[in-house]
């Protein structure tokens, strides 16, 4: 490892612009003639639109256009789709209801877009939006997923009878039922995974610009995957053909999944720009973000875990109802299925598993992948159940886990996944040592003397990252392939540009991707530029989510670097009149191994472009491309320990220590990896302690601002103790597993296990807010 190479704690190149206020986010973009959009949104959770009157709004000062769903439809703009086909167990395809970017007949959740107003200023657009007169006939709404399945529930989409989108299963129900029947002990639980609002700090925004002269569109958007946005807007929403549509995702202020999807607003800004003849910018305010960003989680499950007389797990049966909200968002269907049930084996050797998942429509914001996506739900269910089982069986939670760990690899689970490598006992030991698990009893006694309830909880998670082998996901219903592309351009003077389909919105790719190049060629990271986020520059890519940029995106870069290296060595061998096989790259030069004959990197690059003296038949130039398709998922895993102290008088939970021991495979930049874990843990603790998304029975979102939705703040959290062990991933050239979601996956069950341990109860609802904890201590219902 050099000072800038793989494994080095290099400070980030991209920081300079962010710490000086020079970042360029979508809302910072200004194009000549740009005007502003405001949306009129449904105030009702479920209603028939009777009439839309825009005459008054059209006459307001500064108004350029007031546009409705009827016009959008007339122009042939398509409905939004879900791109992952799931079949129910009876073989029928999922029931996808129509989602028009602008509702014209019926609205299905509070925040559904109905009319867009374009005006000179944002203020004028908002004023005019208030003057749009829409008459609605209110319908009964349902927000709770199990209730939406009841016969009396209102029907939300004609396409989905009884609001059931699919009724899907995975695993062997006969074997699982037999295991439960023969069990020496069964642990049964009802598990609720609370709905969360992702809350990237940068609100979603879009700027659409139609260039009449070129008949060409440009869209600046807050996206984690601009190429996918272009593909979907072009192929399915009929906005413009791909060659007439450029999508740019510049600096993006966090995503966490919520900026994967293509939302109505970016489509509408593009369409409205053509309609009105001016560039149109829209920026969500925070309440709009709460109402309309895709939410996360929202599962209600029952679980039965069977044990034999030696406390080995013999079977696991899970029944889950997943709330997908009012419309099926782009990847919504794969979250509670292939990203969830496939991880139900956790770190454990479980011979029989069966999961049944019903996905339902409700009159709430669409639900899709949020940091972890399905895997946090699986981990929470499993790790809460393990903890409860240990308590019921009267054994140590650590030892029950250890006894059931998978120890031989590769390991085929009964739910599709084939784990390639791991060392779960190593993470467990590391976490217990770091947490001084052995000293807990003393700390608990000390706390009791101070009148405090102290508890400890752990969670052993596994996730599947590195999404994903294209053929495998294709066979499971994915509408796209999940490879990644890279292009490495060596310039004539030796500096390098790496074009990648991955997108950085906080992950630090401009640094880590350059570290990879430094490792290979010895070129300083300042001489390497990472280009991403623009469909005109990078030909194609699948973007950043599912902790895939290291394992998949960087693997593509590594493959392209291989090709560059091969050609560079050929050129150097020719210049040095040596054998190609004898050339090594060291300290920024190509050398004949074992001699002092060398050609500096830049001189080799120059030779590639002057082409005065190249091996015969070789094309000039030095630029290589690679499309990398992973051969398997990667399986990061780890163990988290949380210790809490609760004030029984107030119900306030203090996290007194939080330990994370993760196995991420090889690591490019430990500083950045730790940062990812910190952020993930904060989100996980937020889910466990603070963040509750509440709709009232009529479908009004009660938590639609930071006044009502509790975001984790600095004084809610401790400093974290994080460490990594690094079992290299055998499935990709860099041995990387991925680290972006682990924190959010592993932490919620650790926190709740600690709280229930402190109070001495079986379960408590998330978020375990002070009032919920206070009520639990008193044994009263909150």
């Amino acid at each position, binding site marked *: 490892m050099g000072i800038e190479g793989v494994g080095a704690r290099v*400070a*980030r190149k*991209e*920081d*300079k*612009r*962010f*710490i*000086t*206020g*020079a*970042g*360029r*986010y979508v*809302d*910072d973009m*200004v194009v000549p003639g740009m005007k502003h959009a405001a949306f009129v949104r449904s105030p009702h959770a479920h209603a028939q639109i009777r009439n839309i009157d825009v005459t008054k709004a059209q006459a307001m000062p500064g108004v350029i256009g007031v546009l409705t769903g009827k016009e959008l439809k007339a122009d042939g703009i398509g409905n939004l789709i879900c791109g992952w086909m799931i079949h129910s167990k009876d073989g029928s395809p999922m029931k996808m209801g129509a989602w028009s970017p602008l509702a014209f007949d019926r609205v299905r959740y509070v925040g559904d877009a109905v009319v867009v107003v374009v005006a000179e200023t944002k*203020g004028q657009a908002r004023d005019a939006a208030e003057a749009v007169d829409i008459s609605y006939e209110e319908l009964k709404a349902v927000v709770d997923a199990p209730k939406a399945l009841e016969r009396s529930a209102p029907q939300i989409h004609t396409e989905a009878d009884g609001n059931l989108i699919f009724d899907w299963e995975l695993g062997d129900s006969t074997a699982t039922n037999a295991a439960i029947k023969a069990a020496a002990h069964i642990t049964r639980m009802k598990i609720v995974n609370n709905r969360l609002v992702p*809350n*990237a*700090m*940068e*609100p979603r925004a879009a700027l659409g610009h139609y260039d009449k002269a070129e008949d060409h569109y440009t869209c600046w958007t807050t996206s984690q995957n601009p190429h996918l946005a272009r593909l979907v807007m072009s192929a399915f929403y009929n906005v413009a053909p791909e060659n007439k549509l450029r999508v740019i995702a510049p*600096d*993006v*202020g*966090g995503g*966490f999944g919520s900026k994967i999807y293509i939302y109505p607003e970016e489509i509408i800004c593009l369409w409205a720009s053509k309609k009105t003849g001016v560039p149109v910018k829209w*920026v969500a*305010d*925070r*309440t709009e973000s709460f109402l309309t960003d895709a939410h996360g989680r929202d599962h209600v499950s029952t679980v039965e875990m069977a044990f034999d007389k030696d406390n080995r797990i013999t079977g696991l049966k899970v029944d889950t109802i997943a709330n997908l909200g009012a419309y099926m968002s782009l990847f919504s269907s794969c979250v509670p299925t292939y990203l969830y049930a496939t991880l139900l084996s956790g770190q454990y050797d479980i011979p029989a598993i069966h999961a049944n998942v019903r996905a339902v429509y409700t009159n709430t914001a669409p639900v899709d992948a949020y940091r972890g996506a399905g895997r946090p739900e699986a981990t929470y269910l499993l790790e809460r159940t393990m903890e409860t089982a240990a308590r019921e069986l009267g054994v140590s939670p650590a030892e029950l886990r250890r006894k059931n760990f998978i120890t031989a690899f590769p390991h085929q689970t009964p739910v599709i996944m084939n784990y390639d490598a791991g060392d779960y006992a190593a993470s467990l030991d590391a976490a217990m040592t770091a947490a001084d698990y052995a000293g807990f009893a003393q700390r608990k006694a000390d706390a009791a003397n101070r009148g405090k309830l102290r508890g400890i909880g752990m969670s052993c998670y596994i996730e599947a990252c590195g999404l994903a082998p294209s053929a495998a996901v294709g066979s499971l219903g994915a509408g796209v392939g999940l490879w990644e592309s890279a292009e490495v351009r060596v310039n004539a003077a030796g500096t390098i540009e790496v074009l990648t389909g991955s997108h950085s*919105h*906080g*992950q*630090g790719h401009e640094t880590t991707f350059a570290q990879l190049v430094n490792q290979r060629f010895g070129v300083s990271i300042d001489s390497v530029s990472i280009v991403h986020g623009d469909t005109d520059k990078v030909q194609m890519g699948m973007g950043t989510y599912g902790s895939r940029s290291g394992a998949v995106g960087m693997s593509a870069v590594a493959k392209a670097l291989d090709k560059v290296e091969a050609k560079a060595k050929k050129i150097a061998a020719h210049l040095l009149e040596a054998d190609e096989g004898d050339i090594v790259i060291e300290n920024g030069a190509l050398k004949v191994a074992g001699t002092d004959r060398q050609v500096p990197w830049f001189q080799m690059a120059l030779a590639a472009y002057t082409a005065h003296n190249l091996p015969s038949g070789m094309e000039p130039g030095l630029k290589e491309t690679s499309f990398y398709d992973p051969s398997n998922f990667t399986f990061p895993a780890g163990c988290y320990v949380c210790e809490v102290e609760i004030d029984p008088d107030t119900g306030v939970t203090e996290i007194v220590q939080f330990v994370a021991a993760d196995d991420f495979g090889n690591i490019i930049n430990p*500083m*950045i990896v*730790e*940062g990812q874990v*910190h*952020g*993930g*843990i*904060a*989100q996980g603790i937020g889910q466990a302690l603070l963040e509750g998304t509440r709709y009232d029975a009529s479908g009004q979102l009660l938590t639609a*601002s*930071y*006044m009502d939705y509790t*975001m*984790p*703040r*600095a*004084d809610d*959290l401790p*400093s*974290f103790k994080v460490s990594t062990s690094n079992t290299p991933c055998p499935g990709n050239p860099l041995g990387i597993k991925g680290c972006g979601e682990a*924190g959010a996956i592993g932490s919620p069950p650790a926190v709740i296990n600690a709280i229930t341990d402190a109070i001495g109860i079986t379960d408590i609802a998330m978020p375990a807010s002070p009032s919920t904890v206070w009520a639990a201590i008193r044994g009263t219902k909150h």
Partner: protein
Amino acid sequence: MSEISLTVNGKRVSGAAEDRTLLVHFLRENLGLTGTHVGCDTSQCGACVIHVDGKAVKSCTMLAVQASGSSVVTIEGLADGADLHPMQAAFKEHHGLQCGFCTPGMIMAATDMIGRHPEGLDEATVRAELEGNICRCTGYHNIVKAILAASETMSSKGKVRQAA
């Protein structure tokens, strides 16, 4: 519409703004100072923190006209030419930012915090003081570390200056 004039990052500026225009919008839209961000509608996220007459202020919570006659410093005016302010340097050094969206507000709030605590800072104080700034990326761990480190640097610099 009102005419307003103020000093921003050491320069006299003036312009017309609607009475309802927030200071943050005036800075971003009229002056093109887009380093100051808007992350919420309820004065809670702190992405918009700037200094007005030497005090940290949420610029989404002040009308542009109220700032007329004031002296404003934004994130763009914090560095001394090419030299980063110690707080900016500490955020980079300790990885106190990921997506960077909360960062300008964090840095402006943090420099103000140090000014208000001449006795020095500890972790509990920094965490309590950051109550008005939300970050979704970092879990605050490295932000706290960066602020404590900058506080050290700034006070040792101060001591050196005093000694000289």
